[in-house]
């Protein structure tokens, strides 16, 4: 609780004896229970479906889950088993690659799109809205259409595009060499329009007179972007990186639907591995340990980014 709230509270109690009768004042400020009554539905649901499951995950991660026999306390055994497994190490590596690739790709493409589509004109608004559609489309739909685009024969759509620029057809999601990159491309395709909208909003704050000043000094478009636009966008880019990094750690649906971690585990990410451990291989303790590690990594990353931002500011 904040200090100002304490002070406020003490002031109220001081005023009471000499002030109007307690009942009236209670009614005017609302009883102390009123805010809690308004908060109750949200807090109860959070307790039941967020905090209790998290507590349960922590508990389970230290136990060997045995149906009908009762759970057994095993200490850090689940964590050891998980961290030392090749599957998990591979999944962490793939998650990092995918996260970094998608984040960088979306940011770069989003920036280019934003530069091309900046402005107030109606048709720019139209193009931006059309380009934004992948962001609102359900992931399941996107995965299905990209499976079709990635059809591995020579007449698959993505392969036809390759043939226009004189490249050999690829197996895309069906080959261990290209599966992770194929998933990444889908992520960039879906992430870039989102980044574009945020960057377009950030571009509004760029001081336009600086463009003119730099043009008078003889700077071309590239220099204007490097020395005027990019520095002004720094806070926006920091936020986009944060959001993308945190989202990247828990990537699930697109990988599950496009490759399900395959072929041969070449695109397995942490969440698809946890899903398999928990729901297919029934190793609930190890899966819970994975969830706890993922949570810890998310919290650590968030705090790290917050700290570094505060230090700079």
């Amino acid at each position: 609780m904040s200090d100002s709230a304490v002070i406020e509270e003490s002031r109220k109690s001081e005023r009471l004896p000499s002030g109007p009768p307690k009942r009236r004042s209670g009614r005017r400020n609302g009883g102390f229970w009123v805010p809690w009554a308004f908060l109750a539905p949200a807090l109860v649901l959070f307790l039941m479906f967020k905090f209790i499951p998290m507590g349960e995950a922590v508990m389970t991660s230290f136990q060997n889950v045995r149906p009908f026999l009762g759970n057994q306390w095993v200490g850090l055994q689940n964590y050891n088993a998980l961290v030392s497994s090749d599957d998990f190490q591979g999944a962490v590596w793939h998650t990092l690659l995918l996260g970094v690739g998608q984040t960088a790709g979306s940011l770069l493409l989003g920036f280019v799109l934003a530069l091309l589509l900046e402005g107030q004109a109606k048709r720019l608004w139209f193009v931006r809205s059309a380009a934004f559609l992948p962001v609102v489309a359900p992931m399941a739909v996107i995965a299905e259409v990209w499976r079709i685009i990635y059809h591995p024969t020579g007449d698959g759509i993505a392969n036809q595009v390759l043939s226009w620029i004189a490249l050999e057809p690829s197996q895309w999601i069906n080959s261990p060499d290209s599966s992770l990159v194929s998933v990444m491309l889908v992520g960039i395709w879906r992430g870039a329009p989102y980044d574009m909208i945020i960057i377009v909003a950030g571009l509004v704050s760029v001081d336009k007179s600086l463009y003119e000043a730099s043009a008078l000094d003889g700077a071309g478009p590239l220099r204007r972007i490097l020395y005027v636009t990019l520095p002004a966008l720094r806070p926006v880019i920091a936020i986009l990186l944060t959001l993308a990094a945190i989202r990247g750690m828990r990537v699930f649906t697109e990988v599950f639907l496009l490759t399900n971690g395959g072929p041969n585990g070449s695109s397995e990410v942490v969440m698809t591995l946890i899903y398999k451990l928990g729901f297919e291989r029934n190793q609930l303790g190890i899966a819970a340990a994975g969830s706890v590690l993922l949570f810890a990594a998310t919290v650590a990353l968030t705090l790290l980014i917050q700290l570094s931002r505060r230090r700079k500011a």
Partner: protein
Amino acid sequence: MSTSFDSALSLGTNSKPWIKAINYCLWALIIIVFAGPLIAIIVGAFSTNRDPSSLSLIPQQPSLENFSTALDRSVMLYLGNSLVVVGIGLLFQMLVSVFAAYALARKKFRGRGIAMLLVLATLMLPEEILAIPLSRVLSDVPFIGVNLINTLAGMIVPVIAWGFSILVMTEFMKEVPMELEEAAKIDGAGELRTFFSVILPTCTPALGVIGVFGFTMIWDQYLLPLIVASDSNMFTLPLALRSLRADPEVGLGVVLVGATLALLPSVIAFLCFQKSFMRGLASGAVKG
């Protein structure tokens, strides 16, 4: 060359015809790359061709055959499930968010800081991280002990409280002048009355924002229905797409019908609210 710039590339102000032509080509390319695949889904749902390479922006052999096959594969049931989940889920999500935001934005009370912290903390606990324990909690809900596995309620209840929408609403409600509320109280209106007839009506624009965000969020749900629905009768449309695709007897067309039905509601919701949606997105990010 013009010396006034309203963008880094000064595209808008430049009037040289060849630059304009390049611009229009680029815009067309952007639309084809980003909206094209989604338009191709809808076009494909209406054509008879079942060849994966024939996905095209121009309709070929238009027909409704895919739709009649899709009806046999109970696509309407999946659509119905999705609509029930999003309808009930969104209604309660908005109500719960508005209630919580009212307390957080308009009241000074002991423990407000803690309540705010709890809401913020939930943002770090997305369903992906909680999938495994959540499935156990849903099979034996705390305090009540009901089993929500394989029920639509199991997909609805966990999405009702959503920290993001509570925070968006709280930010908005802070802007409403306090005098409005005080005037209502002096006129003798009670808490609920003040809330429903004074505060809520002033928040209609924000209701549009949390409504369209909530809709997209619930409609896009995948992992939660996946762990809840054990029986195909309970599948939502996004889940059903995968089983339709895996069914060797139905062609690509039926998957495309399902995808079209799953795609259109979110696209329509976005197009209706696009201004507030994109502004909400942008202001949240740029401010934060």
